[in-house]
């Protein structure tokens, strides 16, 4: 198992290098010379400009610039944000934390709701419960996440129950620790609902389909024939096997979540990674974009790795590392 994890982590490195090359090339194609914007404004001190130029070879052709960036990145130096003059890494850590909070709470909501609802739908197949669930699922799959986010803001504004966007109240610095936590939770509720329910719908349909497939298997008939209670048949025999294919889609659901979060973050003013990417793409903050891309891709790959490990734990037939 350990060997498998190490092997997978090692294969991530060439992949990340490939991603960084692709992104760097894309950013270089874009019109608008950012060296020019760096030198023309006087927001950068001469010394800092010289330092960046020296470190990242801004006066050299872009393949060499890329290699310099890569060399620095391998030492975990992702450069300076051109817009805020902060080191990219410190901004990234903060933004990643925020995205993680939102993603994890949405993930928990989505899976916590999807699995029981999917089981319910499959067991009560073709009854009104199932139909209601399917209707719910189709609605949430079809409604654009940014539109739901808008409606959620509308709800927050009208009801006054929740803050309208953002992650902290304006007076957060005056609060004590527990108060800050409650404040964060209050801001978290609506974005989590928007993202979590959207993610829930797809997983629920998968769970329903997977369980229906399993219930057709012979060993289920055998279990019933032996006189096991229906509850035992479902919980002990069917669900355990039906859940495996879902673990493989865990990685995909994470990818969808990160993408969905990018839009919701922008609508609901949640200071996460997706919002950072939009801001820095628009201000041509090239090193910030690169850093955010690397981080997003790493999170995605770690998520996939995590789902593989999870699969190996739940399914004894799978032997990792072979």
């Amino acid at each position, binding site marked *: 198992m350990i060997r498998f994890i190490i092997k997978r982590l090692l294969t991530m490195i060439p992949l990340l290098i490939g991603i960084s090359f692709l992104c760097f090339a894309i950013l270089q194609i874009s019109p608008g010379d950012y060296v020019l914007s760096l030198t023309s404004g006087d927001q950068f001190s001469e010394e800092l400009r010289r330092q960046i130029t020296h470190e990242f070879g801004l006066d050299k052709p872009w393949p060499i610039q890329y290699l310099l960036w890569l060399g620095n990145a391998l030492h975990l130096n992702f450069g300076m944000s051109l817009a805020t003059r902060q080191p990219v890494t410190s901004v990234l850590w903060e933004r990643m934390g925020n995205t993680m909070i939102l993603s994890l709470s949405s993930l928990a909501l989505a899976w916590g709701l999807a699995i029981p609802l999917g089981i319910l739908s499959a067991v009560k197949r073709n009854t009104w419960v199932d139909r209601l669930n399917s209707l719910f699922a189709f609605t949430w799959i079809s409604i654009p996440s940014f539109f739901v986010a808008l409606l959620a803001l509308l709800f927050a504004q009208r009801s006054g129950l929740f803050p309208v966007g953002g992650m902290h109240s304006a007076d957060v610095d005056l609060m004590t620790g527990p108060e800050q936590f409650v404040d964060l939770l209050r801001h978290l509720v609506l974005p989590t609902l928007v993202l979590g329910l959207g993610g829930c719908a797809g997983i629920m349909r998968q769970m329903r389909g997977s369980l229906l497939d399993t219930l057709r298997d012979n060993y289920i008939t055998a279990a019933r024939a032996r006189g096991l209670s229906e509850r035992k048949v479902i919980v002990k025999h069917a669900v355990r096997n039906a859940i495996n294919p879902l673990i493989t889609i865990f990685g995909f659901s994470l990818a969808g979540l990160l993408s969905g979060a990018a839009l919701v973050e922008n609508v609901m003013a949640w200071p996460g990674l*997706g919002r950072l990417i*939009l801001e820095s793409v628009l201000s041509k903050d090239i090193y910030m974009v690169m850093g955010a891309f690397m981080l997003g891709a790493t999170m995605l790959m770690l998520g996939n790795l995590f789902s593989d490990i999870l699969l190996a734990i739940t399914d004894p037939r799978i032997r990792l590392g072979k």
Partner: protein
Amino acid sequence: MIVTAMPSNAAPNDTLEDDSLSETPWQLTWRQLRKNRFAMAGGAVLIVLYTMAILANFLSPYPITERSDHVYQPPSAVVFHDDNGRFSMWPHTERMALNTQTQQYNSLSGSAVPLRLFVRGEPYRLLGLLPLNMHLFSGSGGVPFHILGTDSDGRDVFSRLMVGSQISLTIGIVAISITFTIGLLMGGIAGYYGGPVDNILMRICEVIMSIPQFYLLIALAGLLPPTLDPRLTFLLIIVILSFVGWAGLARVIRGIALSTRELEYVQAARALGVSDLTIIRRHVLPSAFTYATVSATLAIPGYILAESGLSFLGLGIKIPIPSWGNMLTAAQNLEVLTSKFWMLAPGVMIFVTVLAFNFLGDGLRDALDPKLRR
């Protein structure tokens, strides 16, 4: 083919075995699909929507860029009386005026004018060819009829919704056709040749798939200069969507091609000296076609959502050209969001379109799945 026992109460023409045996795969699919009410409803809605997009200029009463000083006017009232207050079967509309004290629009009583059908107005070209100047409906006597109100520049929201549908509805179809072609070809080549070709193509796929999709879309679309010709922007957005989307399809197609190439009929074709590309096109890809059809139908909504999301963020189709996504950008303003409900209409249209595609795609998947056939 195994013919399962027919239920005893089946209609007489269903009991003819040779009848169902002689069905082509398409007839079989169609028969299955017709049983699914949701799929048929989805299909019907899509036909209506696409007809609407084709007739957009005819259906829209006003030019999409025509501004007026009626800013954020709510939907015009439809009343059934004339300007003297006498009842009339024919729908009338009333002039609206802004009350400067309350900042609210009110219908002026005694200003009712009849709605008119087939009005001559702004000339346009139907499908870009047929020059016409007929519009389905309009107000009369100088009273404008804004069925879905007006936006921040006093432009008719309904007209923009109609014309915007042309962009929002075509972008998914065009993007999926390109994705489809690239994905099928790349997947087919990778699976058929195997070895280093397969290796390189799949590594490229992995790189693209390891980046959260919407991050990549934002970065790519964010690079388009804002001053670009709108038509070029439209094309480039399609290219971007396809570039991001082909990898997933190619991987699955590769898997199918990998198992197909070992089959006898493919080896027979190879032994006969058929060229590689012909084998891929004629023998390998058709086996992946069912999967591809279903996944394409289910992928179109993804493209529609992606385009509207990008345009919403101001990165996709840019104003003044309307698309459903960029029309919703105005609703990001809290004041507009809370008091100008008609500005949310494009969101409803996106929802209906995507829902229809999902119903149809889901039905198609069931209809093409031999396990579910009875």
